[in-house]
């Protein structure tokens, strides 16, 4: 019996489980042993559901034994960012204010994964309420980058990304408001997609910025991304913003063929601000696609320079409204020994939130407050329209836009935590995608000299994940190298 199932992709596991070459329980045991081996170093998990996972795996095995259809994720071990509501365990967003919170329901994405035969291994670390780009804002622990334990795994879904890179899970789930799936995927060298806004129901995703939030998977290869999207996408009556559109079979896009496809390189992204080594890696990837028949065209996204300002006005404004619900009355933390209801609210919020969450609530409250609403919030929404139009215009000239995911490789733990604005600027290449509501995928395109992964980002028109997957699959098949196991967890 092979005991290295933890190294396999989801589709390899699924095929072997369905063909009875291995049991779901054996696969789960392999991953649990791997978590035991490496998570002390990586610290991706905040809660491991070992016994429940074994029971879930046994149930899958029993159904296979009975000849039942077990779904396209049969026996696939999956980890969940702690932002997803689950009946099992707690759902805390890695915040003190939700410590111990037990959701009375499972979110739609989680339910759909479970119905497809997935086995849940537990909850994964994140920046508190998904606010951050390094996972250093977690109230629980700091997750390490599996390629270099002194570096961050990116954020906010840093636990979900690190768990894939360290082979602790076959698929993980994250959420992306301004890059929180794509940037950590780039930092650790795995595949991560933020689908079009509305593709996946957000029911059961704790809200950060409702006009920007979207759920997506982290995977080891592009085929697994297609499978996970097939399971999770589609209209859900419980989320009125989920799109009422037919969902294609995304596995049909897995063709190594980009002949005639137009790749747009936005000149505003390829400036001096882009690290030279990173630029070289991206250009190497572009050459791979050109050799496969793709055509490169220069495009312009003229309002790129304003995206961070727009984003941090809109996301903090929406967050300040969404987070008002945590007041110590119905669930979560309640400050002890308070004399009045007003004091209950203020003491609970002040003690319950970490510094970054408090800062964003303050900024969001400020930009929405009387006298500043038009100057900041309304102005930002207008510039958001200009940013959207930039993309509409660019997609007249090209089929996909190709950019770096992040200006640099993963940075050192502590390097940017003293300066919030500098941390915000590390989202420069990812946030426009959320503002425009379009899909974006990040995948690895090699290692820079320091031994850390570089990531390339592929964007397309709204609801055109198929073209993104086709480009990503072609690059993966033709790039001529494997990322291999990260050095710190070999």
């Amino acid at each position: 019996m092979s005991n290295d199932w933890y190294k396999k992709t989801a589709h390899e596991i699924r095929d072997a489980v369905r063909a009875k070459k291995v049991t779901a329980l054996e696969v789960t045991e392999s991953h649990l042993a791997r978590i035991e081996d490496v998570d002390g170093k990586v610290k991706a998990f905040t809660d491991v559901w070992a016994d429940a996972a074994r029971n879930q795996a046994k149930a899958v095995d029993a159904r296979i034994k009975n000849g039942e259809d077990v779904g396209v994720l049969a026996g696939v071990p999956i980890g969940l960012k702690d932002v997803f509501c689950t009946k099992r365990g707690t759902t805390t967003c890695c915040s003190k204010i939700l410590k111990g919170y037990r959701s009375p329901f499972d979110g739609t994405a989680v339910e759909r994964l479970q119905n497809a035969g997935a086995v849940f291994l537990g909850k994964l670390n994140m920046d508190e309420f998904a606010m951050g780009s390094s996972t250093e804002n977690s109230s629980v622990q700091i997750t390490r980058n599996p390629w270099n334990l002194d570096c961050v795994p990116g954020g906010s879904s840093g636990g979900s990304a690190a768990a894939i890179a360290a082979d602790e899970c076959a698929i993980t789930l994250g959420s992306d408001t301004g890059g929180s799936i794509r940037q950590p995927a780039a930092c650790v060298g795995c595949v991560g997609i933020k689908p079009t806004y509305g593709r996946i129901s957000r029911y059961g995703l704790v809200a950060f910025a409702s006009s920007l939030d979207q759920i997506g998977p982290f995977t080891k290869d592009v085929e697994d991304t297609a499978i996970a999207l097939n399971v999770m996408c589609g209209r859900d009556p419980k989320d009125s913003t989920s799109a009422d559109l037919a969902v294609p079979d995304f596995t049909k896009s897995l063709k190594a063929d980009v002949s005639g496809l137009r790749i747009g390189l936005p000149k505003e992204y390829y400036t001096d601000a882009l690290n030279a080594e990173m630029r070289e890696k991206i250009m190497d990837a572009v050459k791979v696609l050109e050799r496969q028949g793709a055509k490169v065209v220069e495009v312009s996204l003229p309002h790129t320079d304003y995206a961070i300002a727009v984003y941090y006005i809109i996301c903090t404004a929406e967050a300040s409204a969404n987070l008002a619900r945590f007041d110590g009355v119905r669930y979560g933390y309640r400050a002890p020994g308070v004399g009045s209801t007003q004091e209950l609210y203020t003491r609970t919020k002040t003690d319950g939130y970490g510094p970054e969450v408090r800062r964003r609530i303050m900024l969001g409250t400020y930009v929405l407050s009387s006298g500043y609403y038009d100057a900041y919030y309304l102005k930002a929404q207008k510039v958001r329209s200009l940013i959207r139009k930039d993309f509409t215009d660019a997609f007249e000239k090209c089929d996909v836009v190709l950019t770096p995911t992040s200006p640099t490789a993963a940075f050192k733990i502590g390097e940017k935590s003293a300066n919030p604005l500098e941390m915000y600027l590390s989202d420069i290449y990812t946030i426009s995608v959320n503002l425009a509501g379009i899909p974006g995928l990040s995948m690895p395109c090699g290692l820079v000299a320091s031994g850390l992964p570089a990531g390339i980002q592929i964007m397309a028109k709204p609801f055109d994940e198929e073209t993104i997957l086709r480009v990503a699959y072609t690059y993966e098949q033709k790039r001529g190298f494997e990322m291999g196991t990260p050095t710190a967890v070999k």
Partner: protein
Amino acid sequence: MAKITKADVEYVAGLAQLTLDEATKEKLVGEMGDILAYMDKLNELNTDGIEPTMHVLEMSNVFREDEVQPSLDREAALANAPKTDGEYFLVPKILDTGDE
């Protein structure tokens, strides 16, 4: 000129229902000032006549039939509350009725 003063921070903290200590207030004066100054770059753009984007969806109202559906039962809804009497969430008294 400072973008934001300590009085601004105190006013906004009141709106956000936060009680900040002096050191945190001082820190926020600097941090929020820097961030808001950065955001001023939006004023370089003329946005007259541009419609704001509140969300990116090509839909407006989403209606459904007004039918009773299953919802959380009381026990589940109260299960996470810090304090209840088994029927309601409990908070400290809001009105002083003098009959403590």
